[in-house]
């Protein structure tokens, strides 16, 4: 599948934003700290930026509002509706922290639940497509939720460090554990992604009862929308290297740094801020490579007609 830049940016940044917002909703950070107030604003900005980015690949973005109408059947529509609804408790929580320096557990937890539901809907857009084998599995929502939680927790640790949180080690340690869990889920996802494909050139043409099928003449001399959109190949060539890069940057570096911070909590202050910041940046870079591979490596059933 073609990895549209806007979709990669959208899913990773909104994942980070929803992850951070959901942890702020649980009241893990002191609402009176200036760093926490910035965290609320940052979460809203990341979510809004991601949503705007997701409209960039539309053919007619001026009609995007129509996408809120079909929530009864379409996961994409559900995602849109949930994204809009989630803004209410998140903005409310942000208002309480920024202007009243307090955290309301009810509004916070409602926000957390809606954040999780929105990320789940995003992932179900992909998981519901039977035409793409590697996406059509419960591992897909699990890994999206895992990465949102891990990046949100890492960002919470960074904002906690910046705000001089008295108990930084649970935040850093929790982030390290969530990073490991997220990549464990992703590794499971990758294992199932290597299953034999559901459809083959033989089943696609219905000629399998005769024998082996191979393409003799494509329908057109040049590429077309289908081969461009569904037949992306660049990253497949380097898939192994990219997967290792994603593992090192997304898992190894942040897990070691965050675990280190949890074990040596006395290294507070600017060191802690620097360590958590590097962890978040490295984690996000790793998740972006992972998301690139999620699209680029996915094989669509229609390509059976072009083999």
């Amino acid at each position, binding site marked *: 599948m073609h990895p549209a830049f806007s979709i990669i940016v959208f899913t990773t940044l909104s994942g980070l934003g929803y992850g951070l917002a959901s942890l702020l909703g649980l009241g893990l950070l002191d609402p009176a700290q200036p760093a926490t107030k910035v965290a609320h604003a940052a979460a809203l900005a990341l979510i809004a930026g991601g949503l705007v980015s997701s409209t960039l690949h539309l053919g007619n973005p001026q009609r995007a509002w129509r996408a809120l109408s*079909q929530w009864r059947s379409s996961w994409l529509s559900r995602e849109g509706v949930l994204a809009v609804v989630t803004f209410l408790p998140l903005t409310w929580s942000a208002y309480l922290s920024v202007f009243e320096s307090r955290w309301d557990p009810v509004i916070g937890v409602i926000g957390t639940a809606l954040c999780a539901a929105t990320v789940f809907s995003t992932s179900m857009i992909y998981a519901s*497509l039977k035409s793409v084998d590697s996406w059509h599995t419960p591992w897909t929502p699990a890994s999206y939720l895992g990465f949102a939680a891990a990046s949100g927790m890492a960002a919470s640790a960074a904002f906690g460090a910046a705000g001089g949180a008295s108990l930084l080690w649970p935040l850093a340690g929790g982030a390290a554990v969530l990073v490991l869990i997220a990549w464990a889920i992703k590794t499971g996802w990758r294992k199932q992604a290597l299953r034999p494909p559901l459809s083959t050139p033989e089943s696609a043409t219905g000629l399998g009862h005769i024998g082996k099928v191979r393409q003799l003449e494509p329908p057109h001399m040049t590429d077309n929308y289908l081969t461009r959109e569904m037949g992306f190949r660049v990253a497949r060539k380097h898939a192994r290297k990219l997967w290792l890069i994603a593992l090192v940057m997304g898992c190894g570096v942040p897990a070691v740094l965050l675990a280190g911070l949890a074990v040596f909590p006395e290294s507070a202050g600017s060191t802690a801020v620097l360590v958590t910041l590097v962890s978040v940046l490295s984690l996000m870079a790793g998740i972006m490579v992972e998301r690139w591979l999620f699209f680029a490596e996915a094989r669509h059933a229609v390509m059976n007609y072009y083999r």
Partner: protein
Amino acid sequence: MTSLPRHNTPKKLGLVIDLDVCVGCHACVVACKEWNTGGYGSALSDQDPYGAGVSGAWLNRVHGYEVTPDGRDRVVIGEAGDARVVHFPKSCLHCDDAPCVTVCPTGASYKREDDGIVLVDEDKCIGCGLCAWACPYGAREMDLAAGVMKKCTLCVDRIYNETLEEVDRVPSCVRTCPTNARHFGDLADPSSEVSHMVSERGGFDLMPEQGTRPVNKYLPPRPRTPLAASSAPAADDTADATGFFGWVDRMLDRI
């Protein structure tokens, strides 16, 4: 609503495509483009139409495959090892369980309750492309000029069009096919001509494992004479030449 019709549609209008008869001339491809670029919805645009990288939106494409019989099949389509060419037209299959319809976030994609035709309301389409991802057959292509999704309409603006001669009230691809490889009809009606073809010739679904329950059916290639039985005579053997050619042959031998 982009939910599918709750019950089976009373009619299932669709195509039956005969893979034995198709010669891969692409007349249906061109006729489809011609009719649909001026009919239902926006024009079917091409990008860089006179350049080296020409491409565009087409609702019907003809692939060419080579299938090598492995001798498993009980009906001998060809001798084991003798490859044969199958020309393979592909357009929307108007599936009963169309995954392209339910994923649509805007309600632009829908399956008609009365005849089962799957259509796109282009005024509602935002061009997100998710329906094209959901379709395992590649039946939908984005029009890059209009930014909306295009697909086979089963020539809905022909088949009910009473201003046309009755013989023309079939999809453009069916009307134009010079070998009669494409047939249009109601596949929900067991007494229709297309239903008879499907039951007599063993019409099949494409990718049944995708669970889409396509309405369009394909008829398999018929058995053919083994290649060995129709091998060309040796070029130098003139033993059976008689009459005038026999005389020419003998005279030329003497010179």
